[in-house]
């Protein structure tokens, strides 16, 4: 490749950012707000102080966990949209541990994490079982299971696990102190949660790249029939892929309740399942790319709350920017493929 075309390639790969900014700028101009003010507010809201940094990191950790898990299911050609439900089930299992096992901090946190993984894995595997034995497509199965999990969560918060003073949308009573992940000084970030998210990315990276299991999932994702005929045991691989993704989503649930909230809340998943699906798509199922993309998404989310306070704009603008980046990346990806094809055609002696 010639140096100038390599530079062009690099510049093209950055093109989605100005494109997405252009789109949101137009949107802001239409509603009569100053785009520069809006972007400054978002950036300040996300990065102006260590406390803000901590918020961004805390917000990105569950996204990283879920998106890393989805790299597994996407590689296997599975659309695991049941991540929301898997987060919730992880949180529910961990909450049971926090309420019932009054142990010291290390054993109780360890057990909560393991219970969260179990809950998420079971819920993920259930979507897989429905697909294999019930012929329910995983998209429908996953969506259905999300609603079931949400219903179970609300029932638990309003009935057996309601607060001493009465049921409320605020969630359950706070956990006993040992069931809280310790924070870093007086910042709202739990080092244990950071470790869990980074470990998830590393483990998924090596599972997908270096193991038979990962290779078999890749084969299934590219051509299910051939992989089966070549001897890949597709049913167990599919179920373990769902369970592995579910387990990581379950950990995300634990991180939210034990690392941030200290109790079980009705909006524990809060749309993270769908947001992390976009992150995994944007990362093209490569776990190493999940981290920067998740940080960007989290910064948009944290920073855009400032819009409401300072500019009377809806904080949904952050979501608009996130979504337009995803669309712009897809669009530019399509253009680059087209350009590469054209260039090959134009190389003439």
């Amino acid at each position, binding site marked *: 490749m010639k140096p100038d075309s390599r530079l062009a390639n690099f510049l093209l790969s950055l093109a989605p950012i100005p494109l997405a900014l252009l789109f949101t700028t137009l949107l802001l101009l239409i509603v009569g707000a100053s785009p520069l003010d809006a972007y400054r507010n978002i950036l300040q809201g996300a990065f102006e102080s260590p406390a803000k940094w901590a918020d961004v990191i805390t917000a990105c950790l569950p996204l990283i966990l879920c998106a890393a898990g989805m790299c597994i299911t996407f590689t296997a050609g599975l659309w695991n949209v049941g991540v929301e439900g898997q987060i919730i089930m992880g949180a529910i299992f961990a909450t049971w541990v926090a309420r019932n096992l009054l142990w010291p901090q290390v054993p109780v946190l360890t057990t909560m994490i393991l219970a969260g993984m179990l809950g998420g894995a079971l819920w993920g595997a259930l979507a897989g079982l429905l697909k294999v034995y019930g012929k329910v497509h995983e998209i429908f199965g996953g969506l259905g299971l999300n609603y079931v999990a949400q219903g179970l969560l609300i029932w638990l918060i309003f009935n057996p696990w309601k607060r001493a003073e009465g049921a409320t949308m605020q969630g359950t009573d706070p956990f006993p102190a040992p069931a809280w992940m310790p924070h870093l000084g007086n910042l709202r970030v739990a080092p244990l949660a950071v470790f869990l998210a980074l470990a998830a990315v590393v483990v998924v990276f090596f599972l997908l790249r270096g193991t*038979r*299991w990962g290779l078999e999932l890749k*084969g299934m994702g*590219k051509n299910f029939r*051939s992989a089966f005929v070549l*001897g890949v045991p597709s049913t167990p691989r599919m179920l373990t892929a769902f369970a592995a993704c579910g387990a990581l989503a379950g950990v995300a649930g634990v991180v939210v309740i034990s690392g941030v909230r200290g109790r079980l809340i009705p909006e524990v998943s809060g749309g993270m399942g769908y947001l992390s699906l976009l992150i995994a798509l944007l990362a093209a199922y490569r776990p190493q790319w999940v981290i920067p993309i998740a940080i960007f998404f989290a910064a948009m989310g944290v920073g855009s709350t400032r819009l409401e306070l300072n500019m009377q704009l809806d904080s949904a603008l952050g979501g608009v920017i996130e979504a337009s980046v995803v669309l712009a990346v897809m669009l530019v990806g399509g253009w680059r493929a087209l350009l590469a094809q054209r260039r090959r055609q134009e190389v003439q*002696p």
Partner: protein
Amino acid sequence: MRVELIEIHKHFGPVRANDGVSLTLEPGVIHGLLGENGAGKTTLMKCLSGYQTPDSGTIRVDGEKVTFRSPAEAVQRGIGMLHQDPLDFPQLRVLDNFLLAFDRRLLPDRRRGRALLREIGQRFHFELDPDAEVTSLTVGERQQLEILRLLALGAQVIILDEPTTGISAPQRVLLFATLRRLAEEEGRSVVFVSHKLEEVEQLCHRVTVLRHGRVTGEAEMPCPVERLVEMMFGRSLPPPKCVPVEPGPVVLHLEGLSIPSDRLVVEGINLEVHAGEVMGLAGLEGSGQRLLLRACAGLERVTAGRIRLAGQVVTHAPYRRFLEAGVAYLPAGRLEEGLIGGLTIAEHFALTNRKGPFFVDWAAEQERAAQHIAQFRIVGQPETPVEALSGGNQQRTQLALLPPNLRLLLMEHPTRGLDVESADWIWQQLLARREEGTAIVFISADLDELLERSDRIAVFFGGRLSAIVDARCTTVEQLGYLIAGKEAGA
């Protein structure tokens, strides 16, 4: 119209499908394009007809340089191609398929289209019912429809890629008459892509031979066959060798087997296949032989009867048990069911290495792939994605992936679409396996292949096993009768 292809290069990854090919097509000439599988014939023609764009090289039409970005642009300049598999819309009727080609208005003029279809059809004695659905047509009739479509679009250069595969003998006679008329009477140029020497001899005025992506020779016909063979393969073919092997113990035992399917029910199959035996399965397509073969691999649901593998009953066992018992199945759809497009050759070796460790040893798999590539003479690298290989090399890769010491090898059309040399080579590999005691069961539509390679042939008709014959004392005619549902010699 005169078409020149100059120095065409087309690479797929490291595979040089076309490596500087030049070719001139004159009006009124049937031009044969000959070469073994993977020689680059189809790629060259796809470049000419706009399905692919060459990496470099020039195409001139009547002296003017052209670039085609789509088949539609090529057809506009009068160049049209007929593919190995007809590219039509099977759900639509013949007339609609025909109209789709040129009448793109919201309300197409069906009456005019119908008249035009009849007029061109009659000119070439093609009898197509405009109201029939394309699914009900034979491959030969679909080919006729494609030719009519290209003619209606005004194609001056008509390219046919292996057009005689899958069509009946009378259809072939009609096709050849049509092609002669298109060239000799109407002054169009015809490109006939084939690896069948006999057909090229019968039909073509001029022949260009490709090998490994390069032109190895050109000849005016008639031309001695030995010279063509030498240009194709670089040397003359050794005579096929037949090693008789004493059949060993029974490997596969079928008793009263019934296999249901949507279209056809296979019933009452009794069959024994011995170690070291080659059993051919004959029959018209859809007579039940494929269902039976897949049932023997554990890939079809069996409703009655028993399958025994080396004495063990495995009738309802999962596919995995069959694999563990030493059964291998090579499907006809190489990229559909056999190999995984998007994975490299080395990745295929790692994937099928069932005894490999949990953490893949990539260096070792790379090495193993390289060894097999050399041993099986695959044109490619360990890093080559399988979809970049030619059909013949994909078949070699499938064979290379088979584990050693198989008990039963099941194959659909093991040499379909391959040239004589590749086919011979593949059978040498298979014969080496039978000498190790592997039983081979294969489906073929090629009667010569069935008779030449099998010990016994099981003939299927309408879902039943109608006869089992000894291949050594059966003639092509007798086998033909049996396949058509008649008694041999009747």
